[in-house]
Protein backbone atom coordinates (compact mmCIF):
# COMPACT_ATOMS: atom_id res chain seq x y z
CA UNK A 1 0.00 0.00 0.00
CA UNK A 2 1.59 3.21 -1.23
CA UNK A 3 -0.84 5.27 0.78
CA UNK A 4 1.18 4.87 3.94
CA UNK A 5 3.99 6.96 2.50
CA UNK A 6 1.82 10.04 2.17
CA UNK A 7 2.30 12.19 5.25
CA UNK A 8 -0.94 11.28 6.87
CA UNK A 9 0.06 11.96 10.45
CA UNK A 10 -1.82 15.23 10.69
CA UNK A 11 -4.93 13.82 9.01
CA UNK A 12 -5.37 10.65 11.06
CA UNK A 13 -7.75 12.33 13.47
CA UNK A 14 -10.29 12.83 10.68
CA UNK A 15 -10.53 9.07 10.35
CA UNK A 16 -11.88 8.99 13.89
CA UNK A 17 -14.03 12.10 13.51
CA UNK A 18 -15.77 10.83 10.38
CA UNK A 19 -16.82 7.52 11.90
CA UNK A 20 -18.32 9.15 15.02
CA UNK A 21 -21.92 9.31 13.65
CA UNK A 22 -21.76 5.65 12.65
CA UNK A 23 -20.38 4.55 15.99
CA UNK A 24 -22.87 6.62 17.99
CA UNK A 25 -25.85 5.37 15.98
CA UNK A 26 -24.63 1.81 16.28
CA UNK A 27 -24.12 2.04 20.03
CA UNK A 28 -27.48 3.72 20.63
CA UNK A 29 -29.77 1.86 18.28
CA UNK A 30 -28.17 -1.56 17.97
CA UNK A 31 -25.63 -2.38 20.67
CA UNK A 32 -27.57 -0.96 23.61
CA UNK A 33 -30.92 -2.52 22.55
CA UNK A 34 -29.25 -5.93 22.14
CA UNK A 35 -27.68 -5.59 25.58
CA UNK A 36 -31.01 -4.42 27.00
CA UNK A 37 -32.86 -7.32 25.35
CA UNK A 38 -30.40 -9.73 26.91
CA UNK A 39 -31.02 -8.15 30.34
CA UNK A 40 -34.81 -8.30 29.94
CA UNK A 41 -34.45 -11.98 29.17
CA UNK A 42 -33.37 -12.53 32.79
CA UNK A 43 -36.16 -10.48 34.40
CA UNK A 44 -39.88 -10.51 35.16
CA UNK A 45 -40.74 -7.69 32.76
CA UNK A 46 -44.21 -8.26 31.33
CA UNK A 47 -47.49 -6.43 30.86
CA UNK A 48 -48.42 -3.60 28.49
CA UNK A 49 -46.72 -0.31 29.34
CA UNK A 50 -44.55 -1.79 32.11
CA UNK A 51 -41.00 -0.57 32.37
CA UNK A 52 -39.85 -1.58 35.86
CA UNK A 53 -38.44 -5.04 36.40
CA UNK A 54 -36.40 -7.16 38.75
CA UNK A 55 -34.19 -10.13 38.08
CA UNK A 56 -35.71 -13.54 38.52
CA UNK A 57 -34.53 -15.73 41.41
CA UNK A 58 -33.76 -18.46 38.90
CA UNK A 59 -31.91 -16.31 36.41
CA UNK A 60 -32.40 -18.69 33.46
CA UNK A 61 -36.09 -19.31 34.09
CA UNK A 62 -37.30 -17.57 30.91
CA UNK A 63 -34.79 -19.41 28.76
CA UNK A 64 -35.71 -22.76 30.28
CA UNK A 65 -39.39 -22.09 29.80
CA UNK A 66 -39.01 -20.89 26.22
CA UNK A 67 -37.00 -23.93 25.23
CA UNK A 68 -39.68 -26.15 26.77
CA UNK A 69 -42.57 -24.29 25.07
CA UNK A 70 -44.02 -26.54 22.33
CA UNK A 71 -44.98 -23.61 20.09
CA UNK A 72 -41.40 -22.26 20.22
CA UNK A 73 -39.98 -25.63 19.25
CA UNK A 74 -42.59 -25.82 16.53
CA UNK A 75 -41.70 -22.34 15.28
CA UNK A 76 -38.04 -23.35 14.96
CA UNK A 77 -38.95 -26.48 13.04
CA UNK A 78 -41.41 -24.57 10.83
CA UNK A 79 -38.82 -21.92 10.03
CA UNK A 80 -36.29 -24.54 8.96
CA UNK A 81 -38.89 -26.50 6.95
CA UNK A 82 -40.24 -23.43 5.14
CA UNK A 83 -36.73 -22.18 4.41
CA UNK A 84 -35.55 -25.56 3.08
CA UNK A 85 -38.55 -26.09 0.78
CA UNK A 86 -37.93 -22.60 -0.62
CA UNK A 87 -34.15 -22.72 -0.93
CA UNK A 88 -33.51 -26.02 -2.71
CA UNK A 89 -35.71 -25.32 -5.76
CA UNK A 90 -34.58 -21.69 -5.67
CA UNK A 91 -30.87 -22.44 -6.03
CA UNK A 92 -31.49 -25.22 -8.58
CA UNK A 93 -33.66 -23.02 -10.80
CA UNK A 94 -31.23 -20.12 -10.42
CA UNK A 95 -28.35 -22.39 -11.48
CA UNK A 96 -30.29 -23.73 -14.45
CA UNK A 97 -31.16 -20.20 -15.62
CA UNK A 98 -27.57 -19.09 -15.03
CA UNK A 99 -26.34 -21.95 -17.23
CA UNK A 100 -28.82 -20.97 -19.94
CA UNK A 101 -28.21 -17.24 -19.79
CA UNK A 102 -24.42 -17.53 -19.87
CA UNK A 103 -24.27 -20.21 -22.57
CA UNK A 104 -22.25 -18.60 -25.35
CA UNK A 105 -23.22 -21.12 -28.04
CA UNK A 106 -26.96 -20.84 -27.67
CA UNK A 107 -27.76 -17.27 -26.75
CA UNK A 108 -31.16 -16.43 -25.33
CA UNK A 109 -32.68 -13.22 -26.64
CA UNK A 110 -34.51 -10.79 -24.39
CA UNK A 111 -32.36 -11.67 -21.36
CA UNK A 112 -32.63 -8.13 -20.02
CA UNK A 113 -36.43 -8.26 -20.00
CA UNK A 114 -36.44 -11.73 -18.42
CA UNK A 115 -34.10 -10.59 -15.66
CA UNK A 116 -36.28 -7.54 -14.94
CA UNK A 117 -39.40 -9.71 -14.69
CA UNK A 118 -37.79 -12.50 -12.64
CA UNK A 119 -36.44 -10.00 -10.12
CA UNK A 120 -39.61 -7.91 -9.89
CA UNK A 121 -41.41 -9.78 -7.05
CA UNK A 122 -38.38 -9.11 -4.83
CA UNK A 123 -38.97 -5.37 -4.57
CA UNK A 124 -42.71 -5.58 -3.94
CA UNK A 125 -43.76 -5.08 -0.30
CA UNK A 126 -43.79 -8.52 1.33
CA UNK A 127 -46.86 -7.50 3.36
CA UNK A 128 -48.78 -6.84 0.15
CA UNK A 129 -47.59 -10.07 -1.43
CA UNK A 130 -48.72 -12.08 1.60
CA UNK A 131 -52.23 -10.63 1.55
CA UNK A 132 -52.43 -10.92 -2.22
CA UNK A 133 -51.63 -14.65 -2.03
CA UNK A 134 -54.12 -15.05 0.79
CA UNK A 135 -56.80 -13.56 -1.46
CA UNK A 136 -55.64 -15.57 -4.50
CA UNK A 137 -56.08 -18.79 -2.53
CA UNK A 138 -59.48 -17.62 -1.30
CA UNK A 139 -62.27 -20.04 -0.44
CA UNK A 140 -64.88 -20.77 -1.69
CA UNK A 141 -64.13 -18.24 -4.43
CA UNK A 142 -60.70 -17.17 -5.50
CA UNK A 143 -58.45 -17.06 -8.55
CA UNK A 144 -56.59 -20.31 -7.72
CA UNK A 145 -59.89 -22.17 -7.22
CA UNK A 146 -61.14 -20.76 -10.51
CA UNK A 147 -57.91 -21.82 -12.18
CA UNK A 148 -58.26 -25.36 -10.81
CA UNK A 149 -61.79 -25.54 -12.17
CA UNK A 150 -60.68 -24.17 -15.52
CA UNK A 151 -57.93 -26.78 -15.81
CA UNK A 152 -60.27 -29.54 -14.70
CA UNK A 153 -58.21 -30.29 -11.58
CA UNK A 154 -61.18 -29.99 -9.25
CA UNK A 155 -64.97 -29.78 -9.43
CA UNK A 156 -65.62 -28.53 -5.91
CA UNK A 157 -63.89 -25.47 -4.45
CA UNK A 158 -60.95 -26.45 -2.25
CA UNK A 159 -60.13 -24.71 1.03
CA UNK A 160 -56.39 -24.91 0.38
CA UNK A 161 -55.20 -23.02 3.42
CA UNK A 162 -56.75 -25.37 5.96
CA UNK A 163 -54.08 -27.92 5.16
CA UNK A 164 -50.82 -27.51 7.09
CA UNK A 165 -48.52 -28.61 4.32
CA UNK A 166 -50.31 -26.58 1.65
CA UNK A 167 -50.05 -23.51 3.89
CA UNK A 168 -46.32 -24.08 4.47
CA UNK A 169 -45.87 -24.91 0.81
CA UNK A 170 -47.48 -21.66 -0.32
CA UNK A 171 -45.25 -19.61 2.01
CA UNK A 172 -42.21 -21.48 0.72
CA UNK A 173 -43.40 -20.83 -2.81
CA UNK A 174 -43.79 -17.10 -2.12
CA UNK A 175 -40.25 -16.97 -0.73
CA UNK A 176 -38.97 -18.95 -3.71
CA UNK A 177 -40.85 -16.73 -6.14
CA UNK A 178 -39.53 -13.55 -4.51
CA UNK A 179 -35.89 -14.64 -4.34
CA UNK A 180 -34.91 -16.91 -7.26
CA UNK A 181 -34.47 -13.89 -9.56
CA UNK A 182 -32.07 -12.25 -7.13
CA UNK A 183 -30.10 -15.49 -6.71
CA UNK A 184 -29.93 -15.90 -10.48
CA UNK A 185 -28.59 -12.38 -11.04
CA UNK A 186 -25.96 -12.91 -8.33
CA UNK A 187 -24.88 -16.21 -9.89
CA UNK A 188 -24.74 -14.72 -13.40
CA UNK A 189 -22.53 -11.94 -12.05
CA UNK A 190 -20.37 -14.66 -10.53
CA UNK A 191 -20.02 -16.42 -13.88
CA UNK A 192 -19.11 -13.15 -15.60
CA UNK A 193 -16.39 -12.73 -12.99
CA UNK A 194 -14.71 -16.01 -13.90
CA UNK A 195 -11.51 -15.62 -15.85
CA UNK A 196 -12.55 -15.84 -19.55
CA UNK A 197 -9.33 -17.68 -20.44
CA UNK A 198 -10.70 -20.70 -18.56
CA UNK A 199 -13.65 -20.85 -20.94
CA UNK A 200 -11.42 -20.26 -23.96
CA UNK A 201 -9.16 -23.12 -22.94
CA UNK A 202 -12.19 -25.39 -22.55
CA UNK A 203 -13.43 -24.32 -25.96
CA UNK A 204 -10.09 -25.17 -27.56
CA UNK A 205 -10.14 -28.55 -25.84
CA UNK A 206 -13.58 -29.16 -27.34
CA UNK A 207 -15.56 -29.37 -24.11
CA UNK A 208 -19.35 -29.54 -24.44
CA UNK A 209 -21.61 -26.93 -22.84
CA UNK A 210 -22.47 -29.43 -20.14
CA UNK A 211 -18.83 -30.18 -19.39
CA UNK A 212 -18.01 -26.48 -19.23
CA UNK A 213 -20.85 -25.93 -16.76
CA UNK A 214 -20.03 -28.83 -14.46
CA UNK A 215 -16.23 -28.65 -14.56
CA UNK A 216 -15.58 -24.91 -14.79
CA UNK A 217 -18.64 -22.78 -13.98
CA UNK A 218 -19.96 -24.71 -11.00
CA UNK A 219 -16.65 -25.10 -9.11
CA UNK A 220 -15.89 -21.39 -9.65
CA UNK A 221 -19.25 -20.43 -8.17
CA UNK A 222 -18.65 -22.31 -4.93
CA UNK A 223 -17.92 -19.25 -2.79
CA UNK A 224 -20.82 -17.23 -4.20
CA UNK A 225 -23.20 -20.13 -3.69
CA UNK A 226 -22.05 -20.56 -0.11
CA UNK A 227 -22.53 -16.83 0.42
CA UNK A 228 -26.06 -17.05 -1.02
CA UNK A 229 -26.81 -20.05 1.18
CA UNK A 230 -25.75 -18.37 4.41
CA UNK A 231 -27.36 -14.98 3.70
CA UNK A 232 -30.56 -16.73 2.68
CA UNK A 233 -30.49 -18.81 5.86
CA UNK A 234 -29.94 -15.74 8.05
CA UNK A 235 -32.77 -13.93 6.25
CA UNK A 236 -34.95 -17.02 6.45
CA UNK A 237 -34.48 -17.26 10.23
CA UNK A 238 -36.11 -13.82 10.51
CA UNK A 239 -39.08 -14.51 8.25
CA UNK A 240 -41.91 -12.37 9.61
CA UNK A 241 -44.02 -10.33 7.17
CA UNK A 242 -45.28 -13.18 5.03
CA UNK A 243 -46.21 -15.72 7.74
CA UNK A 244 -47.77 -12.93 9.80
CA UNK A 245 -50.01 -11.55 7.06
CA UNK A 246 -50.61 -14.73 5.07
CA UNK A 247 -52.22 -16.83 7.81
CA UNK A 248 -50.85 -15.30 11.03
CA UNK A 249 -49.09 -18.53 11.90
CA UNK A 250 -52.05 -20.83 11.27
CA UNK A 251 -53.47 -23.34 10.65
CA UNK A 252 -52.63 -24.96 13.98
CA UNK A 253 -49.32 -23.04 14.27
CA UNK A 254 -47.99 -24.76 11.14
CA UNK A 255 -46.70 -21.48 9.67
CA UNK A 256 -45.58 -19.95 12.97
CA UNK A 257 -41.99 -18.78 12.54
CA UNK A 258 -39.50 -17.76 15.24
CA UNK A 259 -39.90 -14.03 14.58
CA UNK A 260 -43.66 -14.34 14.61
CA UNK A 261 -43.46 -16.27 17.88
CA UNK A 262 -41.34 -13.48 19.41
CA UNK A 263 -43.74 -10.82 18.15
CA UNK A 264 -46.78 -12.67 19.51
CA UNK A 265 -45.16 -13.16 22.91
CA UNK A 266 -44.21 -9.51 23.30
CA UNK A 267 -46.94 -7.56 21.55
CA UNK A 268 -50.12 -9.52 22.09
CA UNK A 269 -51.83 -11.50 24.83
CA UNK A 270 -50.07 -10.91 28.14
CA UNK A 271 -47.15 -8.92 26.71
CA UNK A 272 -44.43 -11.26 27.92
CA UNK A 273 -41.46 -9.04 27.10
CA UNK A 274 -39.15 -11.22 29.18
CA UNK A 275 -40.01 -14.46 27.37
CA UNK A 276 -39.83 -12.72 23.99
CA UNK A 277 -36.41 -11.33 24.94
CA UNK A 278 -35.18 -14.78 25.90
CA UNK A 279 -36.44 -16.17 22.58
CA UNK A 280 -34.74 -13.26 20.77
CA UNK A 281 -31.44 -14.13 22.41
CA UNK A 282 -31.76 -17.74 21.32
CA UNK A 283 -32.44 -16.54 17.78
CA UNK A 284 -29.52 -14.14 18.11
CA UNK A 285 -27.16 -16.97 19.01
CA UNK A 286 -28.34 -19.02 16.03
CA UNK A 287 -27.85 -16.06 13.68
CA UNK A 288 -24.49 -15.19 15.24
CA UNK A 289 -23.23 -18.70 14.52
CA UNK A 290 -24.47 -18.45 10.93
CA UNK A 291 -22.88 -14.99 10.56
CA UNK A 292 -19.63 -16.39 11.91
CA UNK A 293 -19.65 -18.86 9.07
CA UNK A 294 -20.35 -16.06 6.60
CA UNK A 295 -17.60 -13.92 8.09
CA UNK A 296 -15.22 -16.83 7.63
CA UNK A 297 -16.24 -17.16 3.97
CA UNK A 298 -15.86 -13.45 3.26
CA UNK A 299 -12.61 -12.92 5.14
CA UNK A 300 -9.77 -11.35 3.26
CA UNK A 301 -8.17 -14.49 1.90
CA UNK A 302 -5.10 -12.81 0.43
CA UNK A 303 -4.31 -11.04 3.69
CA UNK A 304 -4.81 -14.27 5.63
CA UNK A 305 -2.56 -16.12 3.20
CA UNK A 306 0.09 -13.42 3.40
CA UNK A 307 0.08 -13.53 7.20
CA UNK A 308 0.52 -17.28 7.06
CA UNK A 309 3.39 -16.95 4.58
CA UNK A 310 5.05 -14.31 6.73
CA UNK A 311 4.79 -16.54 9.77
CA UNK A 312 6.29 -19.41 7.82
CA UNK A 313 9.08 -17.16 6.59
CA UNK A 314 9.86 -15.94 10.09
CA UNK A 315 9.90 -19.48 11.39
CA UNK A 316 12.24 -20.50 8.61
CA UNK A 317 14.48 -17.54 9.38
CA UNK A 318 14.56 -18.45 13.04
CA UNK A 319 15.32 -22.04 12.19
CA UNK A 320 18.07 -20.91 9.86
CA UNK A 321 19.47 -18.58 12.54
CA UNK A 322 19.45 -21.42 15.03
CA UNK A 323 21.26 -23.66 12.58
CA UNK A 324 23.85 -20.97 11.97
CA UNK A 325 24.25 -20.53 15.71
CA UNK A 326 24.65 -24.25 16.15
Amino acid at each position, binding site marked *: MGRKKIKSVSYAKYGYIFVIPFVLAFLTFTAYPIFFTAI*IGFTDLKGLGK*TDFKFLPNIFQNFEQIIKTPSFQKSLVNTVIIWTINFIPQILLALLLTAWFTNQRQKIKGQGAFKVLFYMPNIIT*AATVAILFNVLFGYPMGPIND*LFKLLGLSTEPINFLLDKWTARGVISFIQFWMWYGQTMIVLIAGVLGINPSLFEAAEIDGATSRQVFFYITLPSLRTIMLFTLVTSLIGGMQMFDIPRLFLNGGPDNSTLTVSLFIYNQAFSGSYLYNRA*AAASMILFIIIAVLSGILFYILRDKDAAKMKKEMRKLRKAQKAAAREVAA
Partner: protein
Amino acid sequence: MSQAKALKYEPIAGRTITLVIKYTVCIILAILSIMPFWIMIMNATRNTYEIQQNSIALLPSKYLMYNFKVFEGKSFNPLVGFKNSLIIAALTTIVNIYFNSLTAYALVVYTWRLRQAFFTFIMAILMLPAQVSSIGFYQFMYRIGWTNSFLPLILPAIAGPGVVFFMRQYLLGALSIDIVNSARIDGAGEFYTFNRIVLPIMKPAMATQAIFTFVGSWNNLFMPLILLTDKTKYTMPIMVSLLRGDIYRTEFGAVYLGLTLTVLPLFIVYFTLSKYIIAGVALGSMKE
Protein backbone atom coordinates in the same frame (compact mmCIF):
# COMPACT_ATOMS: atom_id res chain seq x y z
CA MET B 1 -13.16 -34.48 -30.18
CA SER B 2 -12.74 -30.98 -31.57
CA GLN B 3 -15.35 -28.32 -31.19
CA ALA B 4 -16.13 -28.23 -34.91
CA LYS B 5 -16.85 -31.92 -34.91
CA ALA B 6 -19.00 -31.67 -31.83
CA LEU B 7 -21.10 -29.00 -33.43
CA LYS B 8 -21.37 -30.89 -36.70
CA TYR B 9 -22.59 -34.07 -35.08
CA GLU B 10 -25.02 -32.40 -32.74
CA PRO B 11 -28.37 -32.84 -34.46
CA ILE B 12 -30.00 -29.55 -35.47
CA ALA B 13 -33.43 -30.79 -34.33
CA GLY B 14 -32.08 -31.48 -30.83
CA ARG B 15 -30.69 -27.98 -30.56
CA THR B 16 -33.96 -26.45 -31.66
CA ILE B 17 -35.84 -28.49 -29.08
CA THR B 18 -33.56 -27.34 -26.24
CA LEU B 19 -33.98 -23.75 -27.38
CA VAL B 20 -37.77 -24.13 -27.43
CA ILE B 21 -37.66 -25.61 -23.91
CA LYS B 22 -35.51 -22.73 -22.65
CA TYR B 23 -37.82 -20.06 -24.04
CA THR B 24 -40.92 -21.88 -22.79
CA VAL B 25 -39.56 -22.06 -19.23
CA CYS B 26 -38.50 -18.41 -19.30
CA ILE B 27 -41.87 -17.27 -20.61
CA ILE B 28 -43.73 -19.35 -18.01
CA LEU B 29 -41.60 -17.80 -15.26
CA ALA B 30 -42.22 -14.33 -16.65
CA ILE B 31 -45.97 -15.00 -16.64
CA LEU B 32 -45.66 -16.27 -13.08
CA SER B 33 -44.10 -12.93 -12.11
CA ILE B 34 -46.76 -10.84 -13.82
CA MET B 35 -49.95 -12.88 -13.34
CA PRO B 36 -50.64 -12.34 -9.60
CA PHE B 37 -50.20 -8.59 -10.01
CA TRP B 38 -52.21 -8.53 -13.23
CA ILE B 39 -55.14 -10.33 -11.57
CA MET B 40 -54.81 -7.90 -8.65
CA ILE B 41 -54.90 -4.78 -10.83
CA MET B 42 -57.78 -6.03 -12.97
CA ASN B 43 -59.84 -7.03 -9.93
CA ALA B 44 -59.23 -3.57 -8.48
CA THR B 45 -61.53 -2.27 -11.20
CA ARG B 46 -64.28 -4.88 -10.70
CA ASN B 47 -67.05 -5.20 -8.16
CA THR B 48 -67.73 -8.03 -5.74
CA TYR B 49 -70.37 -9.63 -7.94
CA GLU B 50 -68.06 -9.81 -10.96
CA ILE B 51 -65.22 -11.20 -8.86
CA GLN B 52 -67.50 -13.84 -7.38
CA GLN B 53 -68.60 -14.92 -10.85
CA ASN B 54 -65.06 -15.27 -12.10
CA SER B 55 -62.06 -14.02 -10.18
CA ILE B 56 -59.59 -14.17 -13.03
CA ALA B 57 -60.06 -11.37 -15.53
CA LEU B 58 -57.57 -10.24 -18.12
CA LEU B 59 -59.38 -6.99 -18.87
CA PRO B 60 -60.49 -4.19 -16.56
CA SER B 61 -64.07 -3.38 -15.65
CA LYS B 62 -65.59 -0.04 -14.61
CA TYR B 63 -65.87 -0.08 -10.81
CA LEU B 64 -62.56 1.60 -9.96
CA MET B 65 -64.24 4.73 -8.58
CA TYR B 66 -66.79 2.65 -6.69
CA ASN B 67 -63.99 0.67 -5.02
CA PHE B 68 -62.27 3.91 -4.08
CA LYS B 69 -65.39 5.06 -2.26
CA VAL B 70 -65.34 1.95 -0.07
CA PHE B 71 -62.26 3.32 1.70
CA GLU B 72 -64.05 6.48 2.79
CA GLY B 73 -64.30 6.66 6.54
CA LYS B 74 -62.47 3.35 7.02
CA SER B 75 -59.13 2.82 8.75
CA PHE B 76 -57.32 1.98 5.52
CA ASN B 77 -56.11 5.33 4.27
CA PRO B 78 -53.69 4.99 1.37
CA LEU B 79 -52.89 8.71 1.22
CA VAL B 80 -51.80 8.89 4.86
CA GLY B 81 -49.81 5.67 4.47
CA PHE B 82 -48.19 6.97 1.33
CA LYS B 83 -47.20 10.27 2.94
CA ASN B 84 -45.76 8.65 6.07
CA SER B 85 -43.87 5.99 4.16
CA LEU B 86 -42.48 8.60 1.79
CA ILE B 87 -41.22 10.80 4.65
CA ILE B 88 -39.63 7.87 6.50
CA ALA B 89 -38.11 6.23 3.42
CA ALA B 90 -36.73 9.50 2.02
CA LEU B 91 -35.12 10.62 5.30
CA THR B 92 -33.81 7.12 6.00
CA THR B 93 -32.20 7.04 2.57
CA ILE B 94 -30.57 10.45 2.99
CA VAL B 95 -29.01 9.81 6.41
CA ASN B 96 -28.08 6.26 5.47
CA ILE B 97 -26.26 7.18 2.27
CA TYR B 98 -24.59 10.30 3.64
CA PHE B 99 -23.21 9.00 6.93
CA ASN B 100 -22.20 5.61 5.62
CA SER B 101 -20.37 7.18 2.68
CA LEU B 102 -18.58 9.36 5.23
CA THR B 103 -17.65 6.26 7.22
CA ALA B 104 -16.41 4.49 4.10
CA TYR B 105 -14.36 7.57 3.19
CA ALA B 106 -12.72 7.52 6.61
CA LEU B 107 -11.81 3.88 6.03
CA VAL B 108 -10.29 4.49 2.61
CA VAL B 109 -8.52 7.84 2.78
CA TYR B 110 -7.17 8.18 6.30
CA THR B 111 -4.59 6.04 7.99
CA TRP B 112 -5.57 5.68 11.60
CA ARG B 113 -4.52 3.15 14.15
CA LEU B 114 -7.90 1.46 14.58
CA ARG B 115 -8.74 1.44 10.88
CA GLN B 116 -8.26 -2.28 10.28
CA ALA B 117 -9.97 -3.15 13.53
CA PHE B 118 -12.91 -0.93 12.62
CA PHE B 119 -13.24 -2.58 9.23
CA THR B 120 -13.23 -6.03 10.84
CA PHE B 121 -15.95 -4.76 13.17
CA ILE B 122 -18.04 -3.57 10.19
CA MET B 123 -17.73 -7.02 8.64
CA ALA B 124 -18.74 -8.66 11.90
CA ILE B 125 -21.96 -6.66 12.26
CA LEU B 126 -22.82 -6.93 8.55
CA MET B 127 -25.66 -9.37 9.07
CA LEU B 128 -26.89 -8.21 12.46
CA PRO B 129 -30.70 -8.28 12.26
CA ALA B 130 -32.89 -5.61 13.82
CA GLN B 131 -35.36 -8.23 14.97
CA VAL B 132 -33.22 -9.81 17.68
CA SER B 133 -32.89 -6.52 19.54
CA SER B 134 -36.51 -5.48 19.02
CA ILE B 135 -37.66 -6.04 22.61
CA GLY B 136 -34.88 -3.91 24.10
CA PHE B 137 -35.31 -1.37 21.32
CA TYR B 138 -39.03 -1.08 22.00
CA GLN B 139 -38.54 -0.72 25.76
CA PHE B 140 -35.83 1.89 25.19
CA MET B 141 -38.01 3.92 22.80
CA TYR B 142 -41.02 3.59 25.10
CA ARG B 143 -39.04 5.00 28.03
CA ILE B 144 -37.84 8.06 26.12
CA GLY B 145 -41.30 8.60 24.61
CA TRP B 146 -40.29 7.89 21.03
CA THR B 147 -43.07 5.46 20.16
CA ASN B 148 -45.32 6.98 17.51
CA SER B 149 -42.33 8.98 16.31
CA PHE B 150 -40.56 8.50 12.98
CA LEU B 151 -37.12 9.06 14.52
CA PRO B 152 -36.53 5.47 15.70
CA LEU B 153 -37.32 4.31 12.17
CA ILE B 154 -34.90 6.78 10.56
CA LEU B 155 -31.91 7.34 12.83
CA PRO B 156 -30.71 3.72 13.12
CA ALA B 157 -29.97 3.93 9.37
CA ILE B 158 -26.96 6.15 10.16
CA ALA B 159 -25.13 2.92 10.97
CA GLY B 160 -25.53 0.73 7.89
CA PRO B 161 -22.57 -1.64 7.70
CA GLY B 162 -23.65 -3.06 4.34
CA VAL B 163 -23.59 0.37 2.74
CA VAL B 164 -20.19 1.15 4.29
CA PHE B 165 -18.85 -2.09 2.84
CA PHE B 166 -20.23 -1.32 -0.63
CA MET B 167 -19.04 2.30 -0.60
CA ARG B 168 -15.58 1.27 0.57
CA GLN B 169 -15.24 -1.16 -2.35
CA TYR B 170 -16.37 1.57 -4.71
CA LEU B 171 -14.03 4.22 -3.32
CA LEU B 172 -11.04 1.88 -3.45
CA GLY B 173 -11.59 1.62 -7.18
CA ALA B 174 -12.86 5.08 -8.08
CA LEU B 175 -11.07 7.55 -5.83
CA SER B 176 -7.53 8.63 -6.47
CA ILE B 177 -5.75 9.97 -3.40
CA ASP B 178 -4.22 12.65 -5.65
CA ILE B 179 -7.60 14.35 -5.93
CA VAL B 180 -7.79 14.63 -2.16
CA ASN B 181 -4.19 15.82 -1.95
CA SER B 182 -4.64 18.52 -4.57
CA ALA B 183 -7.73 19.73 -2.74
CA ARG B 184 -5.59 19.96 0.39
CA ILE B 185 -2.95 21.95 -1.45
CA ASP B 186 -5.71 24.33 -2.58
CA GLY B 187 -6.49 24.82 1.08
CA ALA B 188 -9.76 22.91 1.25
CA GLY B 189 -10.78 21.55 4.63
CA GLU B 190 -11.23 17.79 5.03
CA PHE B 191 -14.98 18.07 5.49
CA TYR B 192 -15.31 20.39 2.51
CA THR B 193 -13.28 17.99 0.36
CA PHE B 194 -15.61 15.15 1.22
CA ASN B 195 -18.80 17.11 0.58
CA ARG B 196 -17.78 18.94 -2.55
CA ILE B 197 -15.24 16.72 -4.27
CA VAL B 198 -15.65 13.15 -3.09
CA LEU B 199 -19.45 12.90 -2.87
CA PRO B 200 -19.93 13.78 -6.56
CA ILE B 201 -17.46 11.02 -7.47
CA MET B 202 -19.54 8.55 -5.47
CA LYS B 203 -22.81 9.43 -7.20
CA PRO B 204 -23.25 6.18 -9.17
CA ALA B 205 -22.65 4.01 -6.10
CA MET B 206 -24.86 6.27 -4.00
CA ALA B 207 -27.71 6.00 -6.48
CA THR B 208 -27.57 2.20 -6.44
CA GLN B 209 -27.53 2.01 -2.67
CA ALA B 210 -30.20 4.71 -2.38
CA ILE B 211 -32.67 2.62 -4.38
CA PHE B 212 -32.21 -0.42 -2.16
CA THR B 213 -32.32 1.59 1.06
CA PHE B 214 -35.47 3.37 -0.05
CA VAL B 215 -37.28 0.20 -1.10
CA GLY B 216 -36.13 -1.61 2.05
CA SER B 217 -37.42 1.17 4.28
CA TRP B 218 -40.66 1.48 2.31
CA ASN B 219 -41.36 -2.26 2.64
CA ASN B 220 -40.40 -2.57 6.30
CA LEU B 221 -43.24 -3.92 8.42
CA PHE B 222 -41.74 -5.24 11.67
CA MET B 223 -40.41 -2.07 13.31
CA PRO B 224 -43.27 0.29 12.35
CA LEU B 225 -45.75 -2.34 13.50
CA ILE B 226 -44.12 -2.41 16.95
CA LEU B 227 -43.59 1.32 17.35
CA LEU B 228 -46.53 3.04 15.66
CA THR B 229 -49.95 2.73 17.27
CA ASP B 230 -51.39 6.08 16.19
CA LYS B 231 -53.44 5.59 13.02
CA THR B 232 -52.27 8.88 11.55
CA LYS B 233 -48.66 7.61 11.74
CA TYR B 234 -49.25 4.28 9.95
CA THR B 235 -46.95 3.42 7.08
CA MET B 236 -48.01 1.72 3.87
CA PRO B 237 -47.23 -1.89 4.96
CA ILE B 238 -49.27 -1.38 8.16
CA MET B 239 -52.11 0.06 6.08
CA VAL B 240 -51.93 -3.05 3.92
CA SER B 241 -52.20 -5.30 6.94
CA LEU B 242 -55.53 -3.61 7.78
CA LEU B 243 -56.96 -5.04 4.57
CA ARG B 244 -57.09 -8.43 6.28
CA GLY B 245 -59.77 -7.07 8.63
CA ASP B 246 -63.36 -8.19 8.56
CA ILE B 247 -64.79 -4.91 7.29
CA TYR B 248 -63.38 -5.73 3.86
CA ARG B 249 -64.59 -9.33 3.81
CA THR B 250 -67.37 -8.55 1.37
CA GLU B 251 -65.66 -5.85 -0.66
CA PHE B 252 -63.28 -7.90 -2.77
CA GLY B 253 -62.72 -5.18 -5.33
CA ALA B 254 -61.69 -2.71 -2.64
CA VAL B 255 -59.18 -5.16 -1.15
CA TYR B 256 -57.56 -5.63 -4.56
CA LEU B 257 -57.57 -1.87 -5.08
CA GLY B 258 -55.93 -1.32 -1.70
CA LEU B 259 -53.20 -3.81 -2.52
CA THR B 260 -52.71 -2.19 -5.92
CA LEU B 261 -52.33 1.27 -4.40
CA THR B 262 -49.56 0.07 -2.10
CA VAL B 263 -47.45 -1.39 -4.88
CA LEU B 264 -48.11 1.19 -7.58
CA PRO B 265 -45.28 3.52 -6.44
CA LEU B 266 -42.92 0.52 -6.33
CA PHE B 267 -43.86 -0.53 -9.85
CA ILE B 268 -43.19 2.97 -11.13
CA VAL B 269 -39.81 3.15 -9.38
CA TYR B 270 -38.88 -0.35 -10.48
CA PHE B 271 -39.71 -0.04 -14.15
CA THR B 272 -38.03 3.35 -14.53
CA LEU B 273 -34.86 2.26 -12.71
CA SER B 274 -34.83 -1.49 -13.44
CA LYS B 275 -31.57 -1.28 -15.40
CA TYR B 276 -29.73 0.21 -12.42
CA ILE B 277 -31.45 -2.08 -9.95
CA ILE B 278 -30.43 -5.25 -11.79
CA ALA B 279 -26.89 -3.90 -12.16
CA GLY B 280 -26.90 -3.02 -8.46
CA VAL B 281 -27.93 -6.54 -7.44
CA ALA B 282 -25.13 -7.97 -9.58
CA LEU B 283 -22.62 -5.48 -8.16
CA GLY B 284 -23.67 -6.16 -4.60
CA SER B 285 -22.67 -9.78 -5.02
CA MET B 286 -19.08 -8.94 -5.92
CA LYS B 287 -17.89 -9.00 -2.34
CA GLU B 288 -14.45 -10.28 -3.11
